[in-house]
């Protein structure tokens, strides 16, 4: 098992891959990819064996952050460096949002927000009934959970006490057009999940020790589904992107790319 600093180092490498991919494609969603990457790296490092047919599943319901998932898949040898350069290009397996029939290792086809938690409920039911001991992780954005279907699925997950289902909400505080709580106020997510019958907690989504401890608690919980609401910074690691709504969806060209690379190098030095 890797240590927290080792996993953090992997996450930082993934940040650089995300920036490179979106720079090459000149399109993508850097902000939400950078906010989720620490958690995503930790989930794969601790609970996903990509070589196994039966395995824990990771549903990136906030599918626009898929460069983060492609970066992880590159680290595990599923994708080549050359293929990372094909993001969003015709005939690429690296579609703009996850597409499981082209690239089965993404586990789920997503992109239309709000549907991933239901997919996770279905997978978790199947794993429960076939005595498959693996977990199902669903990663949503905080803007995404304005979708009503999320709360249908939250009700159903609690009704069936799906303790193999773990929901991560990437609460980076910004959605496509502005501050999440101003666009549509949906704060108090832990209280909402708890009211729906979930066990839930808030963590710092950029503190690897906290992330690993939270994931361990979630896996150990046997009473029902577990929610992790993680406070994150949109664009984390690139100074001019942090908490900047302009980088929800944006290419990264020219000098801005160079600045992003330098920022990330400085961040690695801190670890």
């Amino acid at each position: 098992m890797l240590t927290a600093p080792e996993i953090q180092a992997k996450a930082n490498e993934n940040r650089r891959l995300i920036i490179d991919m979106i720079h090459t494609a000149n399109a993508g969603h850097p902000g939400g990819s950078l906010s989720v990457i620490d958690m995503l790296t930790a989930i794969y490092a601790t609970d996903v064996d990509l070589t196994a047919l039966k395995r824990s599943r990771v549903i990136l319901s906030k599918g626009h952050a898929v460069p983060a998932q492609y970066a992880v898949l590159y680290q595990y040898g599923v994708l080549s460096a050359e293929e990372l350069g094909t993001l969003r290009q015709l005939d690429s397996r690296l579609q703009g949002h996850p597409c499981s029939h082209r690239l089965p290792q993404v586990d789920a086809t997503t992109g239309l927000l709000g549907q991933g938690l239901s997919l996770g409920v279905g997978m978790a039911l199947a794993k429960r009934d076939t005595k498959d001991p693996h977990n199902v992780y669903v990663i949503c954005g905080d803007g995404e959970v304005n979708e009503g279907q999320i709360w249908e699925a939250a009700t159903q997950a609690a009704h069936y006490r799906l303790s193999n289902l773990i929901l991560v909400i990437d609460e980076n505080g910004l959605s496509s057009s502005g501050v999440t709580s101003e666009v549509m106020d949906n704060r108090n997510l832990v209280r909402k999940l708890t009211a729906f019958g979930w066990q839930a907690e808030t963590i710092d989504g950029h503190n690897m020790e906290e992330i690993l401890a939270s994931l361990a608690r979630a896996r150990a919980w046997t009473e029902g589904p577990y929610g992790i609401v993680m406070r994150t910074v949109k664009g984390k690691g690139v100074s001019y992107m942090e908490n900047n709504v302009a980088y929800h969806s944006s290419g990264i060209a020219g000098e801005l790319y160079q600045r992003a690379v330098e920022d990330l190098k400085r961040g690695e030095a801190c670890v």
Partner: protein
Amino acid sequence: MTYETVSLRDYVGKTLNKLYNDRMYVLDGDLSGATRSQQFQKEHPDRFIELGISETSGVSIATGLAMEGMIPFYVNFAIFCTGSAWTQARMACYAQANLKLLATHPGMDNGPDGASHHGNEDIALMRVLPHMRILVPQSPLQLEQAVRSAIETDGPCYIRVSRDAVPVLPETEAPFGGVRLTEESGSDFAVIYEGTALMAAKQGYDLLNEAGYRGRLIQVQELKPFPDAALMALIRDVRGCVTVENHTVLGGLGGAVSEMLAACAQHPPLRRVGVPDVFTQSGPTAQVKARYGLSGRHVLEAVRPLL
């Protein structure tokens, strides 16, 4: 013209029970009594998942089960399976997931509930989705064949099952799929129908024969992929043809046949019988259908001017 009749929904649970295997699930949206999936629940309670009134999540949960190698049948009214959860079904098709939608209460089959509950757009909504198969049986035997075909064929599938009575016609076991020549008296006309519109189609066919015309009564069992060549072979020589559907005339069976004929340099003229581009209203089912374009008389009146 009276026929012994059957409501195919009464065979939904029985058929799923008969064809059960250990990868199958049935998912319900609080309507298992109306759809008769309750019969499955009684025999396989551990493979019956009640989801409450929650169509969007229900279809996505079924998709999640499919992604883990299961064969989920999401059973609900036609408008809920296809309309309420259209983007969920669309994503399942994009994922090429092994999702099965089984719908009862198609078209105006539940007359008294009114326009909100009439599933007059479901074929159109499912036809535009790549990878989706659409099967419409007209008898208990065909329902069993359709469900078996759905189980044996990987990929998304929509099965449309009548709630209203349809005539029981003599049938011999033949493979299910494509088109089927139900009756034939000559080659003046062709009545082309989907299974839940069998009553109006059969009555129209009989009225045309009584009026001295001779033709073919043709069931399209598989609306997608559409059996162009097989249907064209059966209608090429007629003087006029009509589609009959328990559905809007836009985008469904009539739409599919129109698209097919438009690609042919020469073809017989086509009329479309079904719901015109309007919302319906409540009433006894037979009266609602007669008011909104679906009866034997509508078939007769559509075809006669062509002959």
